């Protein structure tokens, strides 16, 4: 009830935990039971703590996406991008509680779909091994990440409310359903598919949804010229974009590290540590490859590609950050980055306008990373990985496309040419990013 008084409860609590201390006739069996309870309690606390720390780190990634995207859209759309990012995180939280979690984890083993139910938190129970609320929190921030990916790709032209509606369906239905197939122990998991922290489940899911949206929404006005030329549309602020990537990098330690889901044993916490190292190394390789590649290929280094390279490295290692040795992690991260570098101009060739590079980074590197697991984790085979990538890709892309299309035909998803031209901050929102200029 209060800050200090609470602390006075410690001693009595400890007493409670060892009721037989003063009793004379404690037996070995009593003691063994107490020791066991003590071990179980510690494991419970460690596991829960891992979820909480991992959870707040991944929550922080929402800020990373917000800054990255604010930096890569034009000034006239910056406020709107900020609004979208904070709103999608809010909506994801509500939806994942309302339907998402039960849809994802209320599935029967090997099943295809969970149950439509609101999340109910059970009482804390030592036998669970961790707090259900901490687990929910950790799973929820993953769900929000998926939505963040979409917002960047479709920036600068999508209407706010349809975007938020799609976000609600993505976080309430699409993501939980594909999540249930694997992490919910559904059919894909039964097939032997493996996606440690979500290269496919989170990143490619976001990427496919973004791809469907980008195609149906169309490119920003002026992005592609009449005779096939590509007009770069530089963003508003490179330092904000850089800040965003540093935030994401930091958050990824929670994303991958806490996906170990336990740290109550020496082996688990050592695994978390290995994951930290591999996650970091993959991102390092992603940066190095992007810097070298753009220097050699374009004769100039492209900062936004270096930033994307870091993220692509992170996405690629996410499917399996535990089993690779460091050189393998470097290779996975470096190749993920390289593929993203190659995908950026490719998308442009198909006139798919992805403002921040969400598709190269999250979809392309995500697919690569997931397939690569077959080579980095001896327990994983290639076919299940391919099936996982393909089935999730097909499902997410088709369902997303249907939703985007339905939204387009009903309420419309694209702002008017006039609004796009003056910018969404003025057209839809009513506050400029830097509203002060002159008067």
């Amino acid at each position, binding site marked *: 009830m209060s800050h200090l008084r609470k602390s006075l409860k410690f001693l009595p609590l400890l007493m409670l935990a060892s009721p037989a201390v003063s009793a004379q006739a404690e037996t070995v069996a009593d003691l063994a039971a107490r020791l066991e309870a003590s071990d179980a309690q510690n494991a419970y606390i460690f596991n829960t703590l891992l979820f909480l720390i991992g959870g707040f780190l991944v929550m922080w990634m929402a800020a990373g996406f917000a800054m990255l995207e604010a930096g890569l859209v034009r000034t006239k759309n910056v406020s709107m991008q900020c609004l979208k990012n904070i709103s999608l995180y809010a909506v994801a939280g509500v939806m994942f509680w309302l339907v998402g979690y039960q849809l994802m984890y209320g599935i029967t083993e090997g099943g295809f779909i969970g149950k439509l139910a609101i999340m109910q938190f059970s009482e804390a129970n030592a036998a669970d091994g961790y707090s259900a609320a901490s687990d929910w929190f950790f799973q929820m921030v993953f769900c929000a990440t998926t939505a963040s990916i979409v917002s960047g790709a479709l920036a600068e032209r999508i209407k706010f409310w349809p975007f938020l509606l799609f976000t609600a369906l993505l976080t309430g239905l699409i993501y939980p359903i594909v999540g249930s197939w694997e992490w919910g122990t559904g059919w894909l998991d039964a097939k032997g598919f493996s996606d440690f922290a979500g290269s496919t489940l989170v990143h490619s899911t976001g990427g496919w949804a973004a791809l469907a949206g980008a195609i149906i929404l169309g490119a920003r006005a*002026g992005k592609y010229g009449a005779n096939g030329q590509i007009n770069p549309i530089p963003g508003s602020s490179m330092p904000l974009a850089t800040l965003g990537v540093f935030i994401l990098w930091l958050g990824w330690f929670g994303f991958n590290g806490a996906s170990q889901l336990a740290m109550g044993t020496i082996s688990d916490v050592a695994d978390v540590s290995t994951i930290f190292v591999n996650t970091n190394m993959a991102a390092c390789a992603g940066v190095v490859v992007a810097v070298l590649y753009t220097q050699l290929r374009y004769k100039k280094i492209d900062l936004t590609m270096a930033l994307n390279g870091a993220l692509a490295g992170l996405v690629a290692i996410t499917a399996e950050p535990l089993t690779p040795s460091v050189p393998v992690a470097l290779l996975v991260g470096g190749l993920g980055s390289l593929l993203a570098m190659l995908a950026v101009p490719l998308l442009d060739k198909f006139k798919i306008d992805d403002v921040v590079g969400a598709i190269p980074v999250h979809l392309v590197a995500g697919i690569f990373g997931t397939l690569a697991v077959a080579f980095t984790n001896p327990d994983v085979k290639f076919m299940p990985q391919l099936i996982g990538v393909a089935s999730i890709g097909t499902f997410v892309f088709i369902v997303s496309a249907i939703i985007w299309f339905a939204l387009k035909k009903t309420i419309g998803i694209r702002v008017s040419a006039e609004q796009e031209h003056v910018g969404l901050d003025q057209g839809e929102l*009513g*506050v*400029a990013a830097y*509203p002060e200029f*002159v008067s």
Partner: protein
Amino acid sequence: MKKIEAIIKPFKLDEVKEALQALGITGMTVLEAKGFGRQKGHTEMYRGAEYVVDFLPKLKIELVIPSDQVEAIIEAIKTVAGTGKIGDGKIFVVDVEQAVRIRTGETGASAL
């Protein structure tokens, strides 16, 4: 020599530049501006209060040219900068007495 001062909508800059290049113009100077005119502004929201922003972003293009090109240039700008919507902007013509190229010291039309 004359100076053409054209106030245009910002997104028209590239087209105007190309049209002028097509006329053989090799130099111009562009300034960011805010314009107030018949085109009505928009309302913004800030902390629960609305306010009207009636200065709109414009670009001001300045180019100095030999007097005989005035008509052609006005025509070109009118064609590409016009959207038919209010707020397209204005073109003003001002007399210029002298022009000097800093680098070479050339003066008059050859300085342009």
